[in-house]
């Protein structure tokens, strides 16, 4: 590693060699040992920027947000049953409407219902976010 490479790495990864990529840390330490003044100047300069960046306030997750997200997992597990009803109703309604309008030629309403049930099952399968465990 030469000085230019050392400087380029510091510019990208900052003033702490411990945070540089594994693959270059050893070479960087060797260069810093060979040119301590140069290395110190480069790392100090980048370290100042690191320190400034670290003053950005940390995001703090509220208890309320935590609980809402936890609850969303349970809701996601429950959702397929609700969607099953909705999907069944909507597909059934759509097919029944199509049949009534004469758009589904030669298909009896009872057959449409059978198709509806099959389509609903598929829709539920597609939407079942928790697969087998949902059935359990």
């Amino acid at each position, binding site marked *: 590693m030469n000085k230019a490479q050392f400087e*380029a790495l510091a510019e*990208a*990864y*900052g003033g702490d060699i411990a945070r540089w*990529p594994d693959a270059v840390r050893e070479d960087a330490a060797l260069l810093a040992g060979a040119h301590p003044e140069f290395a110190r100047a480069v790392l*100090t300069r980048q370290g100042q920027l690191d320190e400034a*960046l670290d003053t950005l306030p940390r995001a703090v997750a509220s208890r309320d947000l*935590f609980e809402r997200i936890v609850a*969303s997992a349970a809701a996601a597990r429950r959702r397929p049953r609700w969607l099953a009803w909705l999907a069944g109703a909507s597909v059934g309604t759509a097919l029944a409407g199509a049949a009534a309008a004469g758009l589904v030629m030669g298909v009896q309403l009872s057959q449409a219902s059978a198709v509806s049930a099959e389509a609903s099952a598929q829709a539920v399968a597609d939407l079942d976010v928790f*697969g087998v465990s949902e059935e359990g």
Partner: protein
Amino acid sequence: MAASDPDEALLARVAEGDAAAVRALVGRKLPRLLGLAQRMLGDPAEAEDVAQETFLRIWRQAPNWRTGQAKFDTWLHRVALNLCFDRLRRRREIPTKEPPEQLDEGPAPDRALEAHDTGKRVGAALAKLPDRQREAVVLCHYQELGNIEAAAVMGVTVEALESLLSRGRRALRAALADLVEQ
């Protein structure tokens, strides 16, 4: 890679509906996700929305998670970043929408009181970076991802990541000229 994924076992329990695992996963990932979104968007309320949306994706993905694919944390960062970019795109498409406070850093005299608040200034400088430079800085400096993982999240080479990092940090240095050596 995935064989040593520290989240894999927890994710499997989440997929089985283990309530304790759900709480553990939220506890483990929420602070990082929230930090990522807040630094990308500069808006705490939007960051919360992104965190919630990301977890909804997790709940859907957990049962389908397969060993041998990307590390879960890498996938998670990509999902959250995509949601952030959706919101950043919407902001640009709807210019009338009021931008978050951090994006508005005009030199008006009434902002003099905030001049000493370094953290806010850093937030404003970060918000002004081009999206990809901000993404690189956030992933490497704040999220502390390794260069290979950060490059994978961003879908770029390590060289491209380093270029984005260097340009981003140079721009931040210029924006914070009175705080850091030039």
